[in-house]
């Protein structure tokens, strides 16, 4: 056991944990942030993605101790003044979730993608989402949500 300091969703937290515990388990079980999901624990499915300094990172394998100096943001922390963020709103409007188990990871990946490239083409989408699986087939809606957020999409071409 060791004391670990984490900055999550803008708040500092001091946590007592085995430092080799993957970040995901600490977020879910110690901080009660259950939005990110355990889908594989093998860095193969994307369900556990969170933002680390603005970049989408899989949190199911890498130890919590690696993240002490970073700014971590989970799907819960994307809300702005208690309201869904623009990306979350686009997912809601386009119905971009069926069971929703993959959704938090996809919202996070989309947020990271659009912050780096406000007008991604389909190749950029594919590479940003390449870590992410969805078994229900909500892919078309996720892509529509992304499109609606691009400059081109927002100008009415939906």
């Amino acid at each position, binding site marked *: 056991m060791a004391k670990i300091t984490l900055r999550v969703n803008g708040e500092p937290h001091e946590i007592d944990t*085995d430092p080799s*515990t*993957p970040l995901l*388990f600490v977020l*879910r*079980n110690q901080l*009660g*942030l*259950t*939005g*990110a*999901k*355990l*889908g*594989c*624990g*093998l860095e*193969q*499915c994307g*369900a556990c993605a969170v933002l680390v300094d603005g970049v989408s990172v899989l949190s199911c394998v890498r130890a919590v101790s690696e993240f002490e100096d970073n700014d971590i943001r*989970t*799907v*819960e922390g*994307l*809300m702005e003044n208690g309201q*869904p963020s623009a990306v*979350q*709103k686009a*997912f*809601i*409007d386009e*119905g*971009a*979730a*069926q*069971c*929703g*188990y*993959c*959704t*938090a990871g996809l*919202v996070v990946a989309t947020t990271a993608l659009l912050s780096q490239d406000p007008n991604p083409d389909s190749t950029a*989408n*594919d590479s940003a*989402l*390449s870590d*992410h*699986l*969805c*078994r*229900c*087939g*909500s*892919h*078309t*809606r*996720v*892509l529509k949500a992304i499109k609606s957020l691009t400059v081109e999409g927002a100008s009415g071409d939906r």
Partner: protein
Amino acid sequence: MTASLTKQPNVDQWLSIGADGRVTIRSGKVDIGQRISTAMAVIAAEELDVALDRIDFAPVETGVSPDEGVTSGSNSMQDSGQAVRLATATARRHLVEKAAAALEVDPSTLELADGLIRSRDTNRSVTYWDLQGDQPFDIAIDPEVSVKAPETYQLVGGQTTARGMTELATGKTEFVHDMTVPGMLHARVVRPPHYHARLKELDESVAQRLEQSGFRVVRDGSFLAVAGADEYAVIKAAERLAAAANWNMGKGLPTRDIYESLTANERVSLPVADGIPRKEPVPPLGDPPTDAALTLSARYEKPYHMHGSLGPSAAMAKSEGEKLHIWTHSQGVYVLRESLADGLGMDEEDLHIIHAPGAGCYGHNGADDVAVDAALVAKAIPGTPVLLKWSREDEHAWEPYGTCMAMELRASLDADGSVIAWSQESFGDTYMMRPRSSPDGDGPRRLLPLRYRAEGVDDPVPQPAMRYHVGIHRNLDPLYIFPEPRLVKNLVRGLPLRTSALRTLGGFANVFAIECFLEELAEAAGIDSVEFRIRHLDDERARDVVKAAAEALYAGDTPPNRGRGIALSQYTNSKAYAAVGVELEVGDDANIKLHRAVVAVDAGQVVDPDGLAMQCEGGFIQAASWTLHEAVTFDRDGVTSRDWDSYPILRFGNIPEIETILMDRPGNPFLGAGEAIAGPAGAAIASALHNATGLRLRRLPFTPDAIRAAAME
């Protein structure tokens, strides 16, 4: 009357009206991402004339919710939707009568708006909540009650946002996996290497050390689990326990080629007529008719598929005195209760099962089994809530798969290109292993963990399913007008892997085979395949979907190097009609790139068009994934598809533009649409692949290796 209504004939079993202005709907169907609760809320709000956001759903729970069996087979809208419609219409009529009495006016002078009932004559009003708030209706549902006429619909068929979308997008939905209660333990199971292995010995010193560090080790025969306060520590403990277990491997899994086994193993063969198997001898195939101008035969094959839920199965359980509570994402809380009570020797009344959200499951996956795992651990640690999750590997290796199948077809055409003889035999293992109790006490045997206890139950022995269009013979009966088709279902024994219900059951494989074969026949006869289909259809609605899909698919010239193909089916020959068109390209690396899909669907009256379109898109994507990528692999020592690398699925990067054409049929009964797309999607890909490359692939999946091998022939 639907079964749901016969079993639950009273309004109070389906809805209640609160003094707080809320309407609560109780349905026995669970929302598994197919937006059933959204569609049902729309129906209820429509019939009651209240705002959509007044509607709540009670969680599905044994002892409280209507018993509607299992959420499956696209039946939800037909059963539960109709029941909710009649229950809410009966309630509305009752409320109007009550209001008329209270206001001392004629019912015909009353107007309704969002629960407010006002008399046009006196301008006095009363609300549903005043009249009925928290009171039981105590009336039976009137199956003849008049319901809204389609032309007066305000909500049905309009645009609605799916319920719960905000919670999903903001991470607030509580899945079973997320449940947290004070004092709870996390738990994991340690499974044998394969189905038939049994625990020979466990290094007791390891178990002891785990106990000394605060873990609880639960062992009952070959059932092995570990529980503890910290989830990740429990995962590590389960790994240590697995390493300490020594298994008796027995004979292992049969390794004969599955496609050989399908037609060589012992089997039960039954002729099928009008969608129903008959207990009669199978008629011999015989020679083709003497007036046949052309006779073709072909054999199509599909491997085992997994449900591959994105979230490994999970359940919470708590044992309290005689009672056992279970929170589960099972699709059938009542059937689970029946079989588990039987298996554990408990009174059904003492078993309380509550549905909680899980990841999409697409049939009978690990949901019921993990509930049993949790129950066994909870019973060993009374008074403590236990949240047990399967690992990714548990899920991949232990869920019941959709069976491998072979379909052998032969058909003869006359000189005009009309089908004059048709034969199809389908071979496979069972699709019918949901934990339903049957008269021979089969229920507990269908719950995997119970087989590994010291007093273990035997493996179940499947019997051929005999109902209309179920199991292997779902959609075996062609939709087309063929004179006296010879249809045979073959339930094959001795196949290697555990199987049960997977989305569409045999429908995917049978429609894949029929529609691929039609393409081959049309080509041999030199007739356009759309024309060939239409000639053999006498059902207007089937023709309409094919025409709509063909028109959209074939608009404009086919871009260079691409191929197009189309296919049709009506799910179970009685539900939604779907025609699917596909445009694709085969790259230099022999990978298939999907460019475009067109899906034309007739699902009767459309309640939630966006939800229906989403179901179609999702159905296409899953079927495309089966067609391009999926096959469960195994060897003598067990299943070798144990993660997403060894069992790849379709990804972002190969998602086509999907155009959905909804043929609205106002006033026609709702038809389940969830599964209608899969069969035609697979066949349309095969046909487009042929169009692009000239290759006919008859065994799924169409991987680069399979395409290269076909090109070499």
